[in-house]
C-alpha cells in the first residue's frame, strides 16, 4: 500500500510540473496582437504647400480636428498629410490646386475633393446624405482603447501551439522510472 501511495504522489508531482510547464510555454507564446482590419477604410488626404505652417493653410489642416464632420471622417479613415515636395504627392496626385482635401474609398473612388477658395465655404457640410461617407465596418488603425500607442506591437505568433510531446514523454519516463524504482525497492 505504501509503495502505491508513493507512486501516486510522485506521479501527481510530475503531472503538476508538466501542467505548469505547459501553461508557462503557452503564456510565453501567446503574445498575439490584434492587427487592424482596415482594408476597407477610406483615405482622407490633405495636400498643402511646404510652408503651410506659416500660412492660412494651417487652418485647413486644423479643420480635420475642429470641424465635426471632418473629424468624424478622420476617425474612420486612413489620414494623410502631404506637402508639395512630398514624393508621394508628386507621383500620385500631381496638379492638385493647394490646399486640397480629398476623400477616397478604399479602391480609389473619389467621394469628394475640395481645393483652394472652395474650402472657405466648408462644402462638405452640404453633401447629400447618400454621398456622405458611411460608417466603415472596418475602422482605421486608430489607437484602440486598451492599446498603448507608445509601445510596439509584439511579434505575431501562431496561436495553434503544437502539443508538447517531448514534455509528455519525459513525464511518462520519469513517472515510469519512479514507479519501477519504488517497486524495486519495496521488493
Amino acid at each position, binding site marked *: 500500500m505504501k509503495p502505491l501511495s508513493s507512486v501516486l504522489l510522485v506521479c501527481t508531482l510530475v503531472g503538476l510540473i508538466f501542467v505548469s510547464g505547459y501553461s508557462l510555454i503557452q503564456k510565453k507564446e501567446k503574445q498575439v496582437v490584434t492587427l487592424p482590419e482596415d482594408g476597407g477604410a477610406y483615405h482622407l488626404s490633405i495636400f498643402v504647400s511646404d510652408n503651410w505652417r506659416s500660412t492660412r493653410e494651417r487652418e485647413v489642416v486644423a479643420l480635420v480636428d475642429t470641424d465635426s464632420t471632418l473629424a468624424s471622417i478622420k476617425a474612420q479613415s486612413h489620414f494623410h498629410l502631404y506637402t508639395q515636395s512630398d514624393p508621394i504627392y508628386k507621383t500620385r496626385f500631381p496638379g492638385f490646386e493647394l490646399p486640397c482635401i480629398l476623400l477616397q474609398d478604399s479602391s*480609389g473612388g473619389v467621394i469628394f475633393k475640395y481645393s483652394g477658395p472652395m474650402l472657405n465655404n466648408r462644402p462638405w457640410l452640404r453633401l447629400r446624405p447618400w454621398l456622405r461617407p458611411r460608417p466603415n465596418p472596418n475602422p482605421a488603425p486608430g489607437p484602440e482603447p486598451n492599446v498603448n500607442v507608445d509601445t*510596439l506591437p509584439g511579434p505575431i505568433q501562431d496561436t495553434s501551439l503544437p502539443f508538447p510531446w517531448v514534455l509528455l514523454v519525459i513525464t511518462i519516463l520519469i513517472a515510469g522510472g519512479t514507479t519501477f524504482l519504488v517497486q524495486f525497492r519495496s521488493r
Partner: protein
Amino acid sequence: MRTKLLILTSLLLVCCLSIPEKKAYLDLNTNLRQLNYNGGSCVYASLCIVLDWQHRSDLSNRLRHNYSGAASQGDLIRACESLGINYAYTIKGDPEFLEWCDRTNRGAAIFYFNNHAVTFAGYITRDKQKYAWLIDNNAPSKYIEVPKNQFIAEWKKYGGFALTSVYSPSPPKPGA
C-alpha cells in the same frame, strides 16, 4: 420590343459581371522603390519599399542609413525595434499573415529566392487565377508575377518569413 429589352438587359448584366474587381496593391511609383544598396542589403531594401509605401520615408531613410549588408530575420527585427518601427511578422510561413498584408494593402518584406528578400505587393486576380506580385529590389521597376499556390509553397520553402510595418498605406490613385 420585349425581346430587345431582354437582350439589352442580358448584355448589360454580362458587361457588369465581366468588369474585374477593383483591387488595391502596393503600387509605389517605380522611381521611389528602393534599389538594393551597398552591394547586398536586400532585406533592408525590401522593408524600405514598404515603409515608403506607408508614407514613413523618415523611418525608411534611417533604416537605409543605419543598416546594410546581409541580414537575417533576427537582424531585421532588431533593426525595427531599434528604430521604433511598429511592425508585425511571421516566421512560420503563415499564409494568413500575407492575406492580411494583402487585405489591408500594406505589403511586406519577405524572404524569397535563394539568399534573397523581396517585397510582397499583394495578390491580384487575372483570368480567374490568383497571382502574387513581388518587387525585387535588384530590378524594382517591374512586378514579378507568381501563381499564388506556387508562391506560398516556395515562400515556405525559403523559410516563410514576412515582416511589415503597421502604418497607413498610401491612398490609391484617384479613380484607380
